[in-house]
Structures are given as structure tokens and as C-alpha cells.
């Protein structure tokens, strides 16, 4: 099949090649333009149709613009519509000619038929020509006040169009205020819905530059407005209902009664036949109950049945969208779905994208009582004619085996697959977890001819097993040798990498037999065009040159059984996806920042978005920070006095030592710190902390007379500045986190070491007082600022709060990025640190932890 580009442009009998036909049309249109003969409208219709059909298939008919406008003087509404469609399409490229249309459009805006008024107004807005906006303001103003709702509906969207053509014209004409009025007062639900979406888009666009817009955007989430909309929800069309529900998600109810009221009000929306309404409702339920563990569980139970119904009632495409959301829920709370596993059985005629999701869900929900049945079902798919799905099914069985239940029976079945030459990868993984089976497996693996294995992953796994268990497989060196001799025919770099390592391992176990193969492999590896293969070969070569014993320790260390295989996604990413429930993030299984640019995150993305938090720092960071610090200084002392007064116990001071090198007057303060007597702690630590604040922050960069010789001497720049864009970019560039890095490691563990240095993932506890004090994020932000650690973004809902911090090394440009997740109810904190200068990340980690652990105790 030829690509469509050619189909469209090649001259084919049914499709005109362009030029001559367009010229033809032009002259015919011109003839009709002035004609007043009866039946002329019919001829015009035919010609207009032709023009539009050319337009549709991508032929440029902009050259007949003048003629089209001339022909538009008609009362025939069908003709008018075609003309408007044409004009809207080409006005942008013909701004001068577009002026010609203004006249008749403006006239039509005053027509007595509301339909014509609406149509003309819509077309006027669609012209999208910057120097014509002046002609738009008047008709829009009139349209917004029109007594016909159709015209008002069109006018509200018209305001939004105007905003996109010219922000200043829209704001200067005070249109947002008019929309605000209509939002609260118009009788027509669609007018209200359009006002809501238009205001959201406008305030979202303005929020980064205008303090006022920010407030207006917040005002959309005010209790009266939310209740006003929710109470009327049934008056809205199903699409507008989604809009209102999306708004409600962002609303933070004051207490649990309010949450229950809202849920009761929306309960019947879960019975809606439109999947978008049900998912939007589910999102409200899920997000509002995040902090109420029991109710949250009930929500899962409640939304389960409606979602399952949607999966089975719509088109495959609709099912897929809903199933993706179920997949997310299953992955988060498999136990809720443990008795529903039969719903996730694959049907033979389902598309593979559906089957893949279902296989993952089956893997997740398998528990002690269902494992047997699920594995039996999966084994049926393994015989499937659809090879990729067969492969996935076997892997799913393997994953279930790795999960713990009834492994013996499963391994037996897997070995059968092995005999059927189906899959090797999971046998490798199984062996890594359950080394005790190596003998059973090896007997089988020994019989596999590597020629028959084609899939790179499977081949790599087979080679891994050959290397790892070469002492038990008599042929191993020879199989490896023949593989190395065919080095050039192996296209997959992954396989070649594994081959190098396997030959090395084999060499340490059976040197005389492998020497030749090793020589061949290293030579081939060094000559390899693939960078990683080349580097690994070179590394092995030098390692062997240096010291063979060391090489053995590096390449073939004694292995410990792997107890848990790292998940492919970090929990941070999973939480982010859950935050973005009912969006593409769920389908792609990626948070939005990975696939969209900032301005397209969503029509109503608020606080928890890193990018949108720009407002805190974007404008005038240094000044702002200093102000905040001044305030902190004042507030800080009084607050501290209060908390001190209420009898803080001294135990908090046993937390890791605060790295005093931060303070220029380190020696003075240091002795104060270890005091653990609450009574004695009365005054001095407090005053020293005040000094700490003063010195740490009041000065742009600490003068730092050579600090006390504490081992990790790390100083931070108190006035560090980083804009959110750079933060985000850096955060993305540096490896995301430990758990993800782990998966990418080859069995040698080389990459792993590297990653560990750059990114430290840790869990620690906040002091209980600290957690209790964390009622508002601001308190922590101020506290951390006191330690020269700036917050760039924060979000989440109690008890799960999330912060992004950054800090800069004093007198250097090296930046530290920190993600910090705090659960205030369990007082657990998880931090991920990324650093430009990896060698300092450990030191910084200590510093950060000690700063954090003092929160709420000072």
C-alpha cells in the first residue's frame, strides 16, 4: 500500500491534480458571483462543494478566496455555512482578503435569525487574524448579551478565541469579568459550561505572569461556585458534566462531612453510560478520600462494578481506555480485585494491546487461592497462535512464580515450556531467585540448541545461563566458543554484551577450555562498533591485564539470590500517574511531563505540578527569598518559643548531628547541639538557632572563615537560585531513582554502582513532632530555607506531602536536587537526591537529613 502522501498528491482519475481545476473553478465562481438568475444558488452549492472537497483532500484552493467572498452574498444558509468554513480555513493565510469578509460577517451578526447571528459570530472568531481583532470586540459584547442562548454559547467560545489571538484585547475589553458574571447567572447550562472552560483556559494562561489571574483561578475552586455547579450537575450535557467533575477534583473539602455530601451527590453519576463521566466521578471519589484509608478502600469497591461494565459494553477502543484505568487500580490495590480475576481472562478475539494489559493484571491479582487457576489459564494462552502474546503469557507465569506462591508446581510447568523452546528469560530470572533449581533447569538448558533461539532477550538469557552455570554444563565453553566465532552475525548489542560477560565467567571457572573463546570474544568486542560493547570489552581486557583475581571478583562475585525484582517503575512515577487519573498518563503509563510540553499538561492542572508552581520563584527569586527569610526570622523565634514552651523533649537531638560546617560560627554553636536535657535546652539552643538563621540566610554567601574540620565539609549557598524549568530539566537528565536504575543493570552490576553514586534513595523518619507540625507545607519550607535549602515546588494532600527542594554548593555552581515525600501520619519520609557533583551527594544527604530531622523540634 502506498503511503497516503502519495495517494493524495498523485494524479489519479478520481482526484484532481490541482492547478487547472482550481483555475476552472475560479472562473465559474466569478460567472456566478453577480448572477441573480433563478437556480443560481444550486449551481453555487455544487461549486462550493467542489471547493470544500478539494480543501479536504489537501489541495490549496486559497486562490479562489476573492470569488468565494463575492459569491457569499446570499440568503441560502447552506451556502453561507460552506463559505464560512472556507473563510475560516484560509483567512489566516490571506489576512488582506479576510478583511473583505468582515463586512458581511458583521452584518450577519445583527441578523434577526439567532442562528445566523451565532454562525456569523463563530466564523468571525475563527478568522484568527491579529489585525482584525478590533472588529471582533463589538459583536462579542453584543453576543454575550444576546437573549438567545445559542448566540451566547457561541460568544463565550468567541471570547476564548479572541484571547488566543490577542491577550491584551481580550483582557482590556474586560471579557473575563463578563464571563464570570455569566458563569454564575446564566440560565443555560451550556453557556455556564463554556464560561467555565474559557475562564480556566484564560486564567491558566495568565497565572504565570499575573498575581490577579492566580487569585481568579483559585476563585474557581471556591466552595460556593463548586456547590453551585455540583448541585446543577444534571442540567449539564454529559460532556460539560466531565468539565465540572474535573473542577471538583481540585476542590479541597473542609472536612469529612463535606466529602460525604459531595460523594452522595455524585453517586448516581457512576451509573452513567458515558465512560468519561464515570471515570471523572471515580477520580473525584478517589482523590477526595486519599487521606481516609477505610473510605478509600470502599471507593475501590464501589467503582469496580461500573468500570467492569464499561469495559464490556463499549467499542474495543472505549474498553481499552477504561481498562487502562482498571489496570492502574489493580496495580495499586491488587487485593481489592483478588476475587475478580476471571474478568481479566483474555478473549481470543481481543486486540493484543488489551491482552497485554490483562496479562499484567492477572499477574498482579494472583494470590494464594487463585494462583493455580490463573496459571492454568495463562498456560492455555502460551499455546496461542499469537506469538508475542504466548511469550507474554509465559513471562506472566514466571512473574507469578517469582511472587512466591506454590513455586514448585509452576516451575514444573515452566520447564515444559522450556522443552517446547518457548522462553528462557524467566528461567534466568527464576534461577536468580531460586538457585536451588539450577540442576533441574540446566539439564534442560543443555539440550537447547542456541541456533533455534532468535529473540534477543531469550538468547541473552540463554547465554547468561551458560556463563553462570558453566561448571555444570559440560558443553558450555564450546557452545560459547561457537557463538563468539559468529560474532558478526549477532545483531543485538544486548546479546553481544551478555556473550562477553558469559565468556568471562566461563573463563574463571574453566580457564583452559575457554581461553580461546575469550581471546576471540575480547578481540571482537574491542572491534565492535557499538559503544557499550566496545567499552565493556575494553574494561574486561584492562581488568584482566591488571589482575586476574580482581577481575574475577568484579565479573563473577558470589551471587545472592535475588529476593525481590525491582519494579520497572518507581513509586514516585506511579503516584504521579495516579494523581493524573482520567488522563492520557494512565494509558501511556507515564506521568504527563514525560510526553507533553508544559503548556499542554491539561486544562486545569494545579498545584501539584512542578511546572505550574513557577509562580513561587519565577519572578524575583532573590528578593522574595530574603523577604521570606526576614519574616521567618521574626516568626521563627516566636514559634520556636511556643513549641519550646510546650515541653519538647530532648530526644530529637539524638538525630544525626547537624553538619555544623554550615555555620560560619561553627565553633560557638557546636557545643550546644548535643544537649539532651530538656530543661537545660531551654534557652541556648534556641538562641543559637536564631544565630543560625541569621548567619545562614541573612548573608548572600557565607564568608566562611575556614570551618571546623568535620569530615564532609559541605557548605551551601544561602541565596541559591534555580528556575523551575532548569530544575525540571536537570531532574529528568539525572537518573530518576535507584529502583529504576537497578533494572537496567547488567548482571555484572557495573552500571548499578555508577547510578548509586548519583542518586540516593533513602527512607528516614521525621521526628513525630515534626510530622505533627507539618500541618501546612509552608512551615517546612521556611524551616528548610533556614538551612539554605530552597523549595521549588510542593504538593500533595495530607498525609502524603511531596516537596521538591534544591540547594547549591557555596561558591560553586554545583546543584543538588531533592525530592522529599513525607507521610505525616506514619512520620516516614522518603528522599531522592540527585547531584551535579556526585562525590558530594553523600555529604549532602547527611546534611539534608539532619536539617529535616530538626524540623518541628526547634
Amino acid at each position, binding site marked *: 500500500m502506498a503511503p497516503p502522501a502519495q495517494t493524495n498528491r498523485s494524479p489519479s482519475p478520481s482526484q484532481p491534480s490541482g492547478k487547472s481545476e482550481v483555475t476552472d473553478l475560479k472562473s465559474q465562481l466569478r460567472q456566478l458571483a453577480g448572477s441573480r438568475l433563478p437556480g443560481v444558488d444550486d449551481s453555487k452549492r455544487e461549486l462550493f462543494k467542489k471547493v470544500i472537497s478539494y480543501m479536504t483532500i489537501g489541495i490549496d484552493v486559497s486562490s479562489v478566496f476573492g470569488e468565494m467572498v463575492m459569491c457569499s452574498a446570499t440568503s441560502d444558509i447552506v451556502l453561507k455555512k460552506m463559505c464560512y468554513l472556507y473563510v475560516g480555513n484560509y483567512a489566516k493565510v490571506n489576512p488582506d482578503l479576510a478583511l473583505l469578509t468582515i463586512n458581511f460577517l458583521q452584518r450577519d451578526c445583527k441578523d434577526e435569525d439567532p442562528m445566523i447571528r451565532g454562525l456569523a459570530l463563530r466564523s468571525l*472568531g475563527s478568522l484568527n487574524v491579529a489585525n482584525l481583532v478590533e472588529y471582533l470586540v463589538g459583536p462579542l459584547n453584543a453576543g454575550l448579551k444576546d437573549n438567545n442562548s445559542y448566540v451566547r454559547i457561541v460568544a463565550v467560545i468567541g471570547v*476564548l478565541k479572541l484571547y488566543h489571538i490577542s491577550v491584551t484585547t481580550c483582557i482590556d475589553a474586560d471579557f473575563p469579568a463578563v464571563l464570570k458574571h455569566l458563569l454564575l447567572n446564566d440560565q443555560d447550562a451550556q453557556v455556564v459550561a463554556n464560561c467555565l472552560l474559557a475562564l480556566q483556559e484564560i486564567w491558566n494562561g495568565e497565572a504565570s505572569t499575573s498575581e490577579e489571574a492566580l487569585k481568579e483561578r483559585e476563585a474557581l475552586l471556591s466552595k460556593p461556585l463548586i456547590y453551585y455547579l455540583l448541585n446543577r450537575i444534571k442540567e449539564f450535557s454529559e460532556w460539560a458534566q466531565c468539565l465540572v467533575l474535573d473542577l471538583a477534583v481540585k476542590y479541597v473539602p473542609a472536612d469529612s462531612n463535606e466529602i460525604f455530601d459531595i460523594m452522595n451527590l455524585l453517586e448516581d453519576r457512576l451509573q452513567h453510560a458515558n465512560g468519561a463521566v464515570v471515570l471523572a466521578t471515580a477520580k473525584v471519589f478517589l482523590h477526595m478520600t486519599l487521606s481516609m484509608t477505610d473510605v478509600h478502600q470502599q471507593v475501590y469497591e464501589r467503582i469496580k462494578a461500573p468500570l467492569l461494565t464499561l469495559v464490556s459494553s463499549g467499542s474495543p477502543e472505549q474498553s481499552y481506555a477504561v481498562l487502562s484505568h482498571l489496570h492502574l487500580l489493580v496495580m495499586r490495590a491488587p487485593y481489592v480485585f483478588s476475587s475478580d480475576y476471571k474478568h481479566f481472562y483474555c478473549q481470543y478475539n481481543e486486540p493484543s494491546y488489551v491482552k497485554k494489559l490483562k496479562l499484567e493484571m492477572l499477574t498482579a491479582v494472583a494470590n494464594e487461592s487463585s494462583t493455580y487457576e490463573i496459571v492454568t489459564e495463562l498456560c492455555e494462552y502460551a499455546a496461542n497462535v499469537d506469538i508475542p502474546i504466548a511469550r507474554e503469557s509465559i513471562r506472566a507465569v514466571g512473574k507469578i512464580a517469582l511472587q512466591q506462591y506454590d513455586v514448585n508446581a509452576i516451575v514444573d510447568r515452566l520447564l515444559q515450556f522450556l522443552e517446547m523452546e518457548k522462553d528462557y528469560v524467566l528461567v534466568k530470572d527464576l534461577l536468580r531467585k531460586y538457585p536451588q533449581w539450577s540442576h533441574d533447569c540446566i539439564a534442560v538448558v543443555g539440550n537447547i540448541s542456541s541456533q533455534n533461539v532468535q529473540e534477543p532477550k531469550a538468547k541473552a538469557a540463554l547465554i547468561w545461563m551458560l556463563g553462570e552455570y558453566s561448571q555444570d554444563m559440560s558443553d558450555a565453553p564450546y557452545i560459547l566458543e561457537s557463538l563468539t566465532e559468529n560474532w558478526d552475525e549477532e545483531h543485538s548489542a544486548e546479546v553481544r554484551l551478555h556473550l562477553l560477560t558469559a565468556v568471562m565467567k566461563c573463563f574463571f571457572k574453566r580457564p583452559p577450555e575457554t581461553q580461546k573463546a575469550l581471546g576471540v570474544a575480547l578481540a571482537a568486542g574491542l572491534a565492535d562498533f557499538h559503544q557499550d560493547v566496545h567499552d565493556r570489552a575494553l574494561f574486561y581486557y584492562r581488568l584482566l591485564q591488571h589482575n586476574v583475581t580482581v577481575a574475577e571478583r568484579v565479573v563473577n562475585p558470589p551471587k545472592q539470590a535475588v529476593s525481590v525484582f525491582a519494579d520497572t517503575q518507581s513509586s514516585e512515577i506511579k503516584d504521579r500517574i495516579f494523581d493524573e487519573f482520567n488522563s492520557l498518563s494512565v494509558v501511556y503509563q507515564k506521568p504527563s511531563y514525560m510526553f507533553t510540553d508544559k503548556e499542554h499538561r491539561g486544562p486545569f492542572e494545579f498545584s501539584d505540578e512542578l511546572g505550574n508552581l513557577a509562580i513561587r520563584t519565577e519572578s524575583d527569586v532573590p528578593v522574595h527569598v530574603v523577604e521570606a527569610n526576614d519574616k521567618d526570622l521574626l516568626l521563627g523565634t516566636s514559634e520556636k518559643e511556643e513549641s519550646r514552651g510546650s515541653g519538647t523533649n530532648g530526644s530529637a537531638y539524638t538525630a544525626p548531628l547537624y553538619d555544623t560546617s554550615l555555620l560560619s560560627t561553627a565553633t560557638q554553636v557546636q557545643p550546644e547541639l548535643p544537649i539532651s536535657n530538656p530543661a537545660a535546652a531551654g534557652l541556648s539552643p534556641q538562641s543559637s538557632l536564631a544565630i543560625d538563621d541569621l548567619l545562614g540566610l541573612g548573608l548572600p554567601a557565607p564568608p566562611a572563615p575556614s570551618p571546623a574540620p568535620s569530615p564532609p565539609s559541605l557548605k551551601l549557598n544561602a541565596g541559591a537560585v534555580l528556575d523551575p524549568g532548569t530544575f525540571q530539566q536537570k531532574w529528568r537528565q539525572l537518573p530518576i531513582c535507584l529502583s529504576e536504575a537497578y533494572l537496567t543493570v547488567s548482571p555484572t552490576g557495573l552500571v548499578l554502582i555508577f547510578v548509586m553514586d548519583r542518586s540516593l534513595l533513602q527512607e528516614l523518619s521525621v521526628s513525630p513532632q515534626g510530622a505533627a507540625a507539618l500541618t501546612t507545607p509552608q512551615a517546612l519550607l521556611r524551616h528548610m530555607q533556614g538551612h539554605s535549602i530552597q523549595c521549588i515546588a510542593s504538593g500533595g494532600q495530607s498525609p502524603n506531602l511531596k516537596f521538591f527542594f534544591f540547594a547549591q554548593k557555596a561558591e560553586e555552581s554545583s546543584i543538588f536536587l531533592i525530592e522529599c515525600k513525607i507521610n505525616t501520619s506514619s512520620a516516614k519520609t522518603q528522599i531522592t537526591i540527585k547531584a551535579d557533583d556526585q562525590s558530594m551527594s553523600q555529604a549532602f544527604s547527611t546534611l539534608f537529613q539532619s536539617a529535616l530531622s530538626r524540623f518541628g523540634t526547634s
Partner: protein
Amino acid sequence: MISQFFVLSQRGDNIVFRDYRGEVPKGSAEIFFRKVKFWKEDGEEEAPPVFNVDGVNYFHVKVVGLLFVATTRVNVSPSLVLELLQRIARVIKDYLGVLNEDSLRKNFVLVYELLDEVIDFGYVQTTSTELLKSYVFNEPLVVDAARLQPLSPAAIFMQGTKRMPGTAVTKSVVANEPGGRKREEIFVDIIEKISVTFSSSGYILTSEIDGTIQMKSYLSGNPEIRLALNEDLSIGRGDYRSSFGSGSVILDDCNFHESVRLDNFDLDRTLTLVPPDGEFPVMNYRMTQEFKPPFRINTLIEEAGALKAEVILKVSAEFPSSITANTIIVQMPLPKYTTRVNFELEPGALGQTTDFKEANRRLEWGLKKIVGGSEHTLRAKLTFSQELHGNITKEAGPVSMTFTIPMYNASRLQVKYLQIAKKSSTYNPYRWVRYVTQANSYVARI
């Protein structure tokens, strides 16, 4: 919020193309089509309904072989866009009577008119056929339905979509009948898709019914309608618990169209609604309660020497003889070394076809119709080019079946009566209540 909407033919030509926001580059239709066409080189996998290319999100649904596509750069709700695409297709069908490439090409100006009102600046305004009527002025050019190749349900399933052909009604909601007056009538279809998996020993492993009560109203003046369902109908959470024989119909769950009022539903299982114009689902339901499957499938495989085997397929219809199933297709994947298949139908077989699809090593047995209570057998002798590895059952099967059974419903859910609020004593519109059962995934393992 979407940026563009377009409909592509099977060959990738634009039939309609509407750009609402100008945020996505012009070549998007080509980029999309190429991506879908060549999703995976081996062609084994279909493109998912949503994907992202260079920051642009493409959504598509397939309807009667046409691709309905929307693009956006925004992280929108995928359900919303996919529902919308499906709904646009339905609205267009309401207007054109028949939805296919031909009718769409003939009426593209009308479609543009619809699109203009359905979406403004990327935001959905309305998808109600009824509301749209007052804004749409083009008269549909009706495609001759008789000339069309009938889209039998089986044919639709072979395109890999679950969409129902809906009602047999192929007239537009706006076009007038030849002769001027519109006939007052209303269609209520109870359409059930059943999925059953039999184990190799004939035991039912899973079964599910996905049903829809579909309505299409041509009543003038929008009278109110009451629809009464079985009084013993109950709705609860079934966890695949067996309750066969208790007599009552137990749905796992259901949902309703916006227009449905449930004031009396809990009391007497009646639904009240003022049906909007066009075709719409009144209620969707799902049932995992055990039911009697309409067909039993027996498969016998006998190895006859190293390179030969015989497959005997037997299908028995376990429904009353007053009912006839049609367009039945039985399929079975065969071992990959199969080179030749000789078929042997029962003596006197009528309207049966057999085929061995070499490309995907699949046996296909078609039957025009099967009368309730009857039994049909097919013998197939297979020849292999290589000796099989071991058990033939591991390399062949499962047997799957598609069929349509008119005037039969597996769930026993019924429309007891359909009451139309009377405008006058002479007002007596035609009411059609029809049942149909179709196979969704009907599989017997071997």
C-alpha cells in the same frame, strides 16, 4: 479539548478534515495513517486507540472500516475523546441512515455542518441528534441501502470489532419517507453478546453476557415512554457465583442513558424516558450468572501416523427448534507444519463452506444456518510436513465460534411492555421489540 478531527478511508484518504485550534501541524493525517498502518513490522499487533507521536496525541476508533481520528497536544481524558469519536459516528449515522464510505463522501458537507455544531474551538458543545436538528440544513443524500453489501454481524466481528450493527433500521432521522408522511414507530432491540469458554472436557470455565437495550425512535412530539423489565430482575455483585435455576435474572451491574429516569425502577423495574431522536443505548448490562450456552462444541483429534491426523468437529445447537441461528463460523488454528487439509462434510450438507487458510494455519467452517436441536459434524484430515514435537493439542486450537441468533436471549431479560404516553385515542405507533444474541468470544479448548 481536541485540536483536529478527521475521518480517513481504509486507504488513508481524508473524507472530512476539520482543524479547530491550529495547534497541530497540517500533515497529521498522514503521520497518523502511516503509524497505524505500520505499527509493528511483523503486522502482528494492532495500533492501540491512543498513541503519541512527537508530542501530538492521536485517538482513533474504527467504525465500519473508517478511521475516526482526533488529535490534541493536551493531556486530556482518553475516555472522553474516544466516547466522543464514537458518538460523532453515531450522530452521523442518525443523519445519513447508513454510515459507510460512500454515504460519507456523498454527504460530506452535511458532516461538516454537524461537526461545526458538535465541537467549537476543540470543546464539545452537543452530541444530541435532537438538538442538532435545528442547526443542520443540508438534506442527506440517502445511499441506497439495498445496493449495499449487507454488513452481517459476523462480517463485523471478522474486522475485529465488538460494535453491533445496531438496528436494521437504515433510515435517516431527518429525511422524509417517499410519500411525505413520517411513519410513527419505535424500535427497541435487546442485543446480547455472549462469551463462553469451555474447558477441554466441556466444562464451562467462564461465561458472561454483555447486553444493551438499544432504542431508535421515530415518534413525533417526543412522548414519554415506559419500559418494563422482568419484575424478578435483581442487580447485585456477582463474583461468578452460580445461581442457575433460581429463576430470577441477576445482573452484576448496569448503567443507563442520561434520559432515563429511575424513579420506579427499584419498585417495579420500569424505566421512564423521553427518547431523544436517533439511536442510543437505554441501558447496558453485564451478567456473569450461569446460563445455558446455545451451542456445545466437541472436538476429537486422532493422530494417524507420524505426518497425519484427523480432526472431528461437532457442533450441537441446544436451543428450541423454533429458533434458527445464522452466519455461523467455526474456526480452529492448526499446527504450524500443516500443509494440507481434506474436508469431509456430512452427507447432504447444505449451505456449508470449508476452508484452510494457509497464511495463518487456520481451519474455517461456515454454516449459513443451524436450526435449534440439530447437530453438525465436520471431518478434516490434516497432513504435516514435519513430525510434531509432542502433543498435537498443544499446537492446535482452541476452537472458536461466531454466530447470530435472532429472537433469542440468553439472559432471559425481557421487555415486558413498552408503553407510549397517548396523545389521542387513535395514536397507536408501531412498536418493535426484538431480541438478538451474538457470540463475542465463544471458545472451546481442546
